[in-house]
């Protein structure tokens, strides 16, 4: 590694912060763009499973809360793509690559949402898994990204409470409602366990080396289980993994997630991938004229 790169590496590894106009190694910039772009893609794709339920929300309060939650996610993607744009990849190019399947988004947004139970489980647990990663990103070496993570984390805090409220209300309701929650949890547990990615040792993870991520995948998963399995169990819900338990060293043991499934899904073969990208494609085509009239430089 060249001397300047070595210096840069030492700089970020000792907590140094990087701004948009600073010199950075090509590899750092490339990894950064890919990572942040995937995050932007995920926020935008995460909107699609949830927006169907805005229209079906069973009370005005829930309708408003869910609309606001989804609005936040669109807002997050706006903030995130601005960061990517300033790193040299314009937003429209990111959207092109998302729609063509060239770039990726998180596994959880490739799955269907089938009931109101899913709405609760997603807001409570999927958002919880996400916020663990996002809190770790507050220490990202690339400062513009770390800064927007502050706003993102702040907004996510209501999402989790909203999710918990939806779940608790159903758990205190009828047998049919409790059944909705358990059934949704059974379906979402697999994707949730895969969410933080396969356990690469932090030393082998270039994202960690460059201090773009400050937390290993395994560590994030442990944090998730530590925080949320007790919350799940105390409601009388079961987790569909007979091996799930905390050992004497405080480490959670579980059935090894299917990493092949994860790879298969994030490379564009999830149950809902094609349909959702298709929706993005058609609405984007239909509104192309608006961008040309209003944002000519971006179009």
């Amino acid at each position, binding site marked *: 590694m060249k001397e300047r790169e070595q210096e840069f590496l030492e700089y970020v590894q000792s907590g140094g912060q990087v701004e948009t106009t600073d010199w950075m190694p090509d590899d750092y910039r490339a990894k950064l763009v890919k990572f942040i772009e995937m995050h932007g893609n995920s926020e935008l794709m995460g909107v699609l499973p949830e927006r169907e339920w805005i229209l079906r929300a069973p009370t005005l309060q829930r309708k408003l809360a869910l609309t606001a939650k989804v*609005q936040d996610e669109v807002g997050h993607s706006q903030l995130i793509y601005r960061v990517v744009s300033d790193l040299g990849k314009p937003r429209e190019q990111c959207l092109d690559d998302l729609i063509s399947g060239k770039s990726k988004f998180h596994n959880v947004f490739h799955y269907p949402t089938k009931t109101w139970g899913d709405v609760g489980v997603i807001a409570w647990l999927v958002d919880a898994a996400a916020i663990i990663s996002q809190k770790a990103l507050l220490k990202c070496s690339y400062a513009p990204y770390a800064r927007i993570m502050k706003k993102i984390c702040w907004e996510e805090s209501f999402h989790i409470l909203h999710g918990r409220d939806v779940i608790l209300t159903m758990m205190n309701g009828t047998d049919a409602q409790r059944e909705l929650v358990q059934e949704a949890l059974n379906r979402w547990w697999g994707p949730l366990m895969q969410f933080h990615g396969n356990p690469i040792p932090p030393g082998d993870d270039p994202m960690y080396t460059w201090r773009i991520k400050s937390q290993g995948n395994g560590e994030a998963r442990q944090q998730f289980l530590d925080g949320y399995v007790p919350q799940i169990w105390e409601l009388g819900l079961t987790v569909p993994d007979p091996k799930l338990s905390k050992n004497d060293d405080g480490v959670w043991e579980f059935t090894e997630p299917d990493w092949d499934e994860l790879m298969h899904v994030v490379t564009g073969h999830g149950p809902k991938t094609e349909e959702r990208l298709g929706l993005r494609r058609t609405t984007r085509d239909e509104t192309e004229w608006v961008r040309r009239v209003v944002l000519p430089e971006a179009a």
Partner: protein
Amino acid sequence: MSARAELLLPIADDELILGWRNSEWTGIAPFLEEDVAFSSIAQNEVGHARALYQLVAEELGTTADELAFDRRPEEYRCSSFVELRLVPDWAKTIARHCLYEDADERRIKELIESDDPEVAGLAAKIDREEAYHRMHAQMWFERLQDVPQFQEALEELRPMVVERGEHLPEFEQLWEEMTEVRRSVAGATW
């Protein structure tokens, strides 16, 4: 039904259904900044509906949610204008936005003059929020006024503003989706 309910229910229904239609753009609006902005407008509309339902619900001995969701389709008083499904046509969406805000302004200003202090008070609050919607509509109008698609959309939708009576065929489907979860477990708390 009281005079107040007769007066406010059509407005509440309009705001609920328009808010519903505008929410259909969430996540798929022409660009991200507008997506966020338009979502706030949709939320405000549902918020206005909620406040209006609450006023009516008090005197009818029911709740805002029951009024919003538990009536049969034929019992809703919304105009067919707000029932139109316009996604993914942004020209028609903005045309409706402009025409609706214009007509709604007149309606709200009348309510502000009401002898009923609760109605007048709520109308004043709604009007202060609607002022921002009107600004937004005006902003888009200025931007799109020379675009043929938009001019055509305005001409096509303008006559529909005052129509009220028969629901459009798409309203039945809207009602089905809107009440699906609520009806799935009757009487449940969500």
